[in-house]
């Protein structure tokens, strides 16, 4: 659902919903009505493909969150650094996951890693026992869990109950929630990919503390952080442009660098924030008793 920033005219800017399907609707509205649209989290490549193919029509659309190829590269970077060569991929049977599986396979091939097991379950009635049993029996060195929803917690439980001692790397979402992670068995590593995490930078720490003070629980580092950054970037772009009309804001976003919680954002020609750089790279955290620790990239000691 799109909403407007309070300082701006009603039809100048919009922030985006979560799901890719809803995002496309708003993207088309943006093409017609010309507000600047900041996509926080919908990751499918089609969004930026539209900008690349039909720039004049879709130039008002920008994406703050990482695209699927970028997501895959970040996860592959972590997996490669651990030295794993056999991985499994399990996730909800949604289009987004199938794209991620393909991109991850390609990215991990460069790190000389290959999948030993891949499975998708229906998110409405996941057959966890079978998938967990099959995954454990293939003995991967790491399992990538492509499910941001609540089913991911159940899957982790089933794997650990079934004797699976390999690390699990979650794409984020529900497993980034400390309230859920605290109920999961931590007999083996449980990693979560996040856009930003407390301790990664001063901005991330300030944000996490503010969020927790306001809402009573820690942010999950993706669906809360990225919309916050999207809103922040819009404000900064309007200030940089000195005007509120969409074309000026677009020019400012294309040309500038903007600081958010997750890092410094610059946009490429298809209006995709460039992730995977020293300035904007996301984090992988590991849940441990009592909290989470950033394991990739390791924060610099100050």
């Amino acid at each position, binding site marked *: 659902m799109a909403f407007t920033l309070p300082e701006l005219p009603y039809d100048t800017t919009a922030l985006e919903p979560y799901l890719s399907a809803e995002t496309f609707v708003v993207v088309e509205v943006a093409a017609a009505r010309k507000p600047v649209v900041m996509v926080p989290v919908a990751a499918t490549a089609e969004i930026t493909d539209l900008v690349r193919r039909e720039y004049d029509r879709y130039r008002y659309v920008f994406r703050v969150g990482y695209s699927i190829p970028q997501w895959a590269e970040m996860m592959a970077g972590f997996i490669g650094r651990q030295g794993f060569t056999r991985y499994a991929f399990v996730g909800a049977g949604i289009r987004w996951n199938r794209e991620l599986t393909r991109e991850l396979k390609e990215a991990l091939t460069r790190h000389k890693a290959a999948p030993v097991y891949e499975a998708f379950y229906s998110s409405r*009635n996941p057959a966890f026992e079978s998938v967990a049993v099959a995954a454990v029996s293939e003995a991967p060195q790491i399992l990538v869990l492509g499910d941001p929803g609540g089913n991911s*917690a159940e899957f982790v439980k089933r794997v650990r109950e079934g004797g699976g001692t390999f690390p699990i790397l979650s794409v984020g979402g529900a497993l980034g929630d400390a309230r859920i992670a605290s109920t999961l068995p931590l007999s083996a590593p449980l990693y979560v990919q996040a856009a930003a995490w407390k301790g990664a930078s001063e901005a991330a720490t300030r944000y996490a503390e503010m969020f927790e003070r306001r809402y009573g629980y820690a942010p999950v580092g993706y669906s809360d952080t990225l919309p916050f950054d999207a809103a922040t970037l819009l404000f900064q772009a309007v200030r940089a442009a000195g005007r509120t009309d969409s074309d000026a804001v677009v020019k400012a976003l294309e040309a500038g660098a903007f600081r958010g919680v997750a890092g410094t954002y610059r946009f490429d020609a298809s209006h995709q924030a460039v992730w995977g750089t020293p300035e904007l790279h996301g984090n992988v955290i590991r849940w441990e008793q009592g909290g989470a620790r950033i394991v990739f990239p390791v924060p610099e000691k100050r």
Partner: protein
Amino acid sequence: MHPFAQILLDGIFTGSTYALMAAGLALILGVVKVVNLSHGAFFSLGAYIAYVLSTKGVSHPAAAVLPAALIAFAFGVFLGKSFINPVRSHPFSVAVGTLGFAILFEQAAQMLWGPHPVSIGADPPWAVASGVIVRRWGAVSLAASAGILFALALFLRSRWGLPVKLIAEEEEIAGSVGMDVEKIRYLTFGFASAAAAVAGALLAPATSITPTMGRVPLILSLIVVIASGMENVLFLFLLAVGLGLWSNAFAFFLSPQWSYVSLLAGICLLLLLRPSGLSATAPGRDY
């Protein structure tokens, strides 16, 4: 691990929990003679009660059973007496009304516990034998479900169960011999709701708990009741376990994503061949 044996055992565990839920639904269909679309909400209620207890430090799988049963029974009696009984002669109104209650519950759960999933810590497995892991929550679920259904079957065969059976088969005769039909109906509704809540409480450690988690078990238990018929508790239990086994085996050997669809397709085929359910051919009737 012995994969195939593990799949079978896990299917039995999950199926036994659905059997408990289905038994409650069968009672409502047979005695109260309405389709209760709020049954899944009671399942979720049981799971949330287990979650609340776990936040207070009580996390044994069986600890939530009695509180869940009592609270759900009270709600079920209230719903049965205040809404179902007065409206039951209008089946569509009952269906819509119970669906409304289910949605009301989902919204209330969302306000109380949030829309995000919550989770209970699962204890380590109970035993490992010959490469097969016996999950703690699964063993408790199987024991509780089998025990409760066995008790239900005995009750229905006993003289105390006679009023329930008579109302299911010959409602007018039951009324004419002086039975308080309305009271028995809403008490049955309460008991059935308690059964659903117990199923939810037993399954809670194995799953993540959300306000809408009862929707799929509702559909599965409806499938079990319709396919097995409402007449034989044993058939119902065996069919529920069979569906759990089928779902797991299909997911393991073929495709996890299609296991649910295959289940529904199989049931449709079964109903084409036997529209009145499997137990229509079985001698004797429990209800």
